[in-house]
């Protein structure tokens, strides 16, 4: 018997929609693991989450916990917590009233208060019990919502884009805090997001979803190194794709350099007829000295202090190449490039 969450062949269909929102998804989340559901908006990841919570009734398939189907268990008895993008705090209750909402109503007062205080400590908001939730900032609201969702000790926590409404700096910090809280409390979680960095920062495994189907489920490192398909690679942020040429076939110097470097590094399989996926930084600008591979600089930009150039490389196309900080040149200039195999992945053809 398997432990944790099992989603088997679930189909969710909305009335009037041409195709199902979730189209036969199988997924397991073992106890204690955090799985991210990653996909573009409208791919069905939120619908799948709602089906697991019991807010959406699947037209086919089963949702089970520890091998026991919960299809007939109403939402409030499933023991699955849910955290929405905008927190959905109850405006008519203060912070403590929100956090305590899911605690048993007849439990004694001191125990309730202790649990509320413990959770507010956990999410980094100690002493805010009596605050009106309207006075909280966006990040604080999400922290309170997280505390509220964790209070009844849900056997599974479902998070629906919990950080998407926040600005970037806050999002990055909260993603790390969220990971800490989930691991500290040993919470099993299913986390929906459209942001790769967020998924990679929070999850033990990432499930990539598109058009209602799961494309690939893997640990973040493995997913990045070996995307299962071009669609997955595109979604992860790989920006250019190059067919691997047959051994003797003529190829541009850039393609040749890519194949040689990847083969030498041994990071990617190179089946004949396969495809190399290039992330930003697959080429690095080589300062000075003639290089076999060159590209024409189209745009120069600075991202967090590092110089990044968009170069047009013959046989490859437009890619983002990295350069050392402070390096500069005029647009239109020809620059030498070397390959960084770490930013290249091989896809089956």
């Amino acid at each position, binding site marked *: 018997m398997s432990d944790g969450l099992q989603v088997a062949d679930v189909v969710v269909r909305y*009335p009037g929609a041409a195709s199902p929102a979730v189209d036969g998804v199988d997924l397991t989340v073992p106890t204690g693991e955090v799985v991210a559901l990653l996909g573009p908006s409208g791919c069905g990841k939120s619908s799948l989450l709602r089906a697991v*919570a*019991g*807010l959406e*009734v*699947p037209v086919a398939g089963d949702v089970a916990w520890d091998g026991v189907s919960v*299809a*007939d*268990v*109403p*939402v*409030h*008895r*499933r*023991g*699955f*917590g*849910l955290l*929405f993008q905008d927190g*959905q705090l*109850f*405006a*008519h209750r203060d912070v403590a009233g929100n956090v305590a*909402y*899911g605690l048993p109503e007849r439990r004694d007062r001191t125990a309730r208060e202790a649990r509320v205080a413990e959770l507010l400590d956990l999410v980094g908001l100690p002493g805010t019990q009596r605050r009106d939730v309207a006075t909280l900032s966006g990040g604080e609201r999400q922290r309170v919502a997280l505390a*509220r*969702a964790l*209070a*009844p000790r*849900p056997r599974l926590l*479902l998070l629906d884009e919990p950080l998407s409404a926040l600005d970037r700096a806050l999002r990055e910090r909260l993603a790390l805090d969220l990971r800490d809280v989930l691991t500290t409390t040993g919470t099993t979680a299913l986390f929906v997001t459209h942001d790769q960095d967020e998924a990679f920062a929070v999850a033990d495994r990432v499930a990539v979803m598109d058009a209602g189907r799961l494309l690939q489920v893997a640990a973040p490192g493995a997913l990045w190194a070996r995307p299962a398909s071009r669609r997955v690679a595109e979604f992860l942020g790989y920006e250019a794709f190059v067919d691997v040429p047959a051994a003797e076939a003529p190829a541009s110097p850039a393609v040749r350099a890519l194949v040689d470097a990847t083969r030498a590094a041994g990071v990617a399989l190179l089946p004949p007829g396969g495809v190399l996926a290039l992330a930003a930084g697959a080429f690095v600008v080589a300062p000075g000295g003639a290089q076999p591979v060159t590209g024409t600089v189209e745009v120069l930009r600075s991202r967090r202090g590092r110089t990044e150039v968009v170069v047009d490389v013959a046989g490859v196309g437009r890619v983002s190449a990295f350069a050392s900080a402070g390096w500069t040149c005029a647009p239109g200039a020809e620059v030498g490039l070397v390959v960084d195999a770490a930013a290249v992945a091989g896809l089956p053809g």
Partner: protein
Amino acid sequence: MRVPGRGWRAGLGWGLAVVVPLAFLTAFFVWPVAEIVGRGFVADGRLDLGGFADVFSRPRTWRVVGQTLAQAALGTAGAVLLGVPGAYLLHRCRFPGRGALRAFVTVPFVLPTVVVGVAFRSLLVDGGLLGGLGLDGTFTAIVLALVFFNYAVVVRTVGGMWERLDPRAEQAARALGASPWRVLRTVTLPALGPAIASAASLVFLFCATAFGTVLVLGGRRYGTVETEIWIQTTQFLDLRAAAVLSVVQLVVVVAALSVAGRARARTERALALGAPAATAHRVRLRDPLDAVAVVVTALTVAGLLALPLLNLVVRSLRTPRGWGLDNYAALAVPQDTLAVSAWQAAGTSVRTAVDATMIALVVGGLVALVVSRRPRRAAARRAVAGLDALFMLPLGVSAVTVGFGFLVSMDAPLGLPVDLRTSPVLVAVAQAVVAVPLVVRTVLPVLRAVDPRQREVAATLGASPGRVLRTVDLAVALRAVGLALGFAFAASLGEFGATSFLARPQEPTLPVVIFRLLGRPGAENYGAALAASVLLAALTAGVVAVCERLRRPGIGGAW
């Protein structure tokens, strides 16, 4: 596959929530109205349009229909013309005393119709403050009273929308070189169009179904279909003609309601588009727009709203023997041929209004709860929309029709052999029928504004459907329920249309006593009527003021 969360108990609960209001509406609205329509169309068990032919061949009928439409049209035009500048000043500008002024302009709307009639009459009557204008008993007097009554509807509906209008569209137009007037004409007013249309159709409805005010002010020369139904029933005892006129009234009301409904839907759509921007600026008298709004509103508030009310209070203190409280002292003893004193009648009014409010709150609350749901299935969604529309009907279907319908049907309600006409409960039930739409319109927007995910999140935290209802829906709706309570209570307290048919002679309500006193000759009776009007006005305005205080800002329908 079973549907989670919808056990048989939840099903039973929702079933009851639908059945109770439906049964109430069927017994106390649909049945009486069907009875009336039957009397109009059916004679001796056969379809017979003879009654229609007869009634419509009378020139009197055409005169009354014409007057009804003319009064309603002019009353609506007046309320909109004066109300739009008022909405601008009270919702888009800031000045000291704005809150008090906003509260004051709402007062006329909650005043009982009879009181409004008395207030205008005491102002315009020979020897009154404006007696020299010769407006007593004229068409103009009726239209002025209707504007007085409905000014607040326009100010609240349009102002509520104006407040939320994103000012950046206007700023963009100004930056493109448009003058303030051009911005008003080409940007602001078009954006407010749906709100103005919505308010206008409601005002038209209220004017077309006006009863108490018209009965008091119109005398024998001017009437509406409403007063005509009453006269045909109580003076000429021609129930057939009354039935035919009720059918005419139904047609007018349904037409006005459907226009109002469409306008409201457009308002709601437009609201969803606009960003909620609260941007009031300080009044600038040098700005021509502000100057016009200030002048129009000052004249309206002082001349049209405050003057009749002040005059009513002052006149109630004047007795044949000089100034004093004699008229108020007279309230403690039965006047003239009346069986009870005004104070006793006030007691009856309050008791009846409490009963009516309770009934309206239960029925209206359940309707609002059911209608606020957005079911997944299309059929259920249509059923909910139908229920919503059904319960708006009594809002327009005149109180007189309800009273008259009770009179002709409650000797054997739904064919049951119990004569309810002698029961004192009947007045409360009739008042509740009139008050239910008020409750629905006040509570529904608040319940609709509850994000469905609030209920979902509560359920995932382990709350049962009952607890979700209690801790999410009811907790949020509580403040609006307070306001609904006030509106329903005030409406019941001042209800005259239905009550005038049903109140038992030995137990009249205060509005009925006022009307009877007005009909008796003698300065003492007149003075007592004025004092009783002040008492009734103070009661209703006080109740609404208390309930309005309970309201959180921004909550409650601008209906």
